[in-house]
């Protein structure tokens, strides 16, 4: 049947083009990663040899906090609530409901808090850095800075990267706290536990090894978000459409890279 033959050919063609697509995409991702690492070298060289724009750094810290704190509050509380409601039946079955606060606290502190905060910030902060710097590039504002005797890496990039590196850990701790509070709300849907008792139960099981690596990795998350956002915006192309492309690919590349960094962090933590 000629019709069927034709169909088969088409589907193998589709599979091929799908594979090529994946190959191209992953290629461009690795090229991106290599470029971001090269960019990091430039940023570090400038950080240690040029004057630091402290005013800009504070401004960026404020903006990062201000932009994302609302979203992080809502997501944090919902994650805590949902985790608690979902885990409860399983624990009830084993008669271990008393473990619920500790278990939820550990999963929030070790994984949910850092990763969710980082992904939200990749969407919110990474994209806005990509768009803002991209439009500064397209409208020649970065060039104007350069001829005004101002190194754009110093004035624009370093404050943003450092602000993200400092603020993401702070926002994560905040998200952890909100998430644990959400968990308390979740428990109180069925039981009646005072906040005091809940916190005692939760932190009885949390150990230093749960907290420390989680905090360390958030610094890396922050650096990734800042660097990728700045890299994409700073190197935007010439037309107006480059601004959208920069913002979009900042989010995509940063999110993917965050997950990979998380995987590496988990592997390293596992060694101890």
């Amino acid at each position, binding site marked *: 049947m000629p019709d069927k033959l034709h169909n088969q050919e088409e589907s193998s063609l589709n599979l091929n083009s799908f594979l090529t697509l994946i190959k191209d995409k992953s290629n461009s991702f690795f090229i991106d990663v290599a470029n971001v690492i090269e960019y990091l070298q430039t940023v570090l060289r400038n950080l240690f040899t040029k004057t630091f724009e402290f005013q800009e750094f504070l401004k960026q810290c404020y903006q990062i906090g201000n932009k994302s704190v609302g979203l992080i509050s809502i997501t944090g509380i919902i994650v805590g609530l949902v985790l608690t409601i979902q885990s409860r039946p399983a624990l009830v079955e084993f008669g271990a409901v008393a473990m619920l606060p500790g278990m939820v606290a550990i999963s929030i502190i070790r994984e949910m808090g850092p990763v969710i905060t980082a992904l939200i910030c990749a969407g919110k902060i990474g994209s806005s850095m990509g768009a803002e710097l991209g439009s*500064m590039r397209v*409208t020649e*504002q970065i*060039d*104007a800075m350069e001829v*005004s*005797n101002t190194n754009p890496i110093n004035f624009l990039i370093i404050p943003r990267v450092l602000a993200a590196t400092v603020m993401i850990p702070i926002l994560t701790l905040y998200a952890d706290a909100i998430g644990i509070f959400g968990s308390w709300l979740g428990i109180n849907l069925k039981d009646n536990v005072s906040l005091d008792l809940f916190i005692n139960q939760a932190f009885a099981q949390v150990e230093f090894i749960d907290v420390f690596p989680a905090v360390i990795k958030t610094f890396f998350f922050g650096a990734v978000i800042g660097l990728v956002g700045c890299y994409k915006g700073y190197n935007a192309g010439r037309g107006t459409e480059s601004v959208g492309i920069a913002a979009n690919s900042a989010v995509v590349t940063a999110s993917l890279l965050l997950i990979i960094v998380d995987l590496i962090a988990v592997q390293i933590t596992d060694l101890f």
Partner: protein
Amino acid sequence: MEKKANNVLIGINDLKKSFGDQKVLDGINLELHDNENLVVLGKSGSGKSVLIKCIVSLLKHDEGSIKVGEYELTDINEEDLIEVRKKIGFLFQSAALYDSMTVRENLTFALSRLKEGFSEEEMNNKIVEALENVGMPDSIDKMPSELSGGMKKRIGLARTLVVNPDIILYDEPTTGLDPVTSHEISNLINDTKGKFKNSSIIITHDINCVKTVADRIAMIKDGKVYKVGSLEAFINDDDSYIQSFFK
């Protein structure tokens, strides 16, 4: 630097610049003399903006040489480049105002980073004066997004002139302005030259502006300098390509 008549401030020799396969500048030879207004004419896309961006090293040229004062821009080091950029003011075709700053902050940024040792009050006076010169004293506390295209252009001009540089590169200073303001800006370019004895390269398509400001004209065609000469020489030239600009 001592100023003599016909002292060469910028010397461009056999300058070449390509983007990929596209040859934009293909052997430009040009000089800017002391205290003169040099107008650069050429069709859209002929590489005029690329040429002046090479002069401030925003774009690196491929071949040839550019000398600004005693500095050669090919392989210039960072300290020397700072000295070159302190001498040169640059008006961008797109005005390039900093979106996140008010008009006052835009001017303060340029002034504080290019000139040292002004008190707060001196800076303020200079900024107000520069804005008055371009007819926009009321916009001092506005954001760029609140301004029209022509207004942005004038603020961009004020930001360039407030620093009072030795050499000014104007990329289409009167494009997008009404005839009255265009005329005022052309006069401002002349006044600045008369008062501060600086030199300028002016890219423009506005023939009235050319007639007001030009001491010399250079026309660019196919990546080369097609003709250099005085305004009269251009107006009296029979060449149809040249005439098409002056009609």
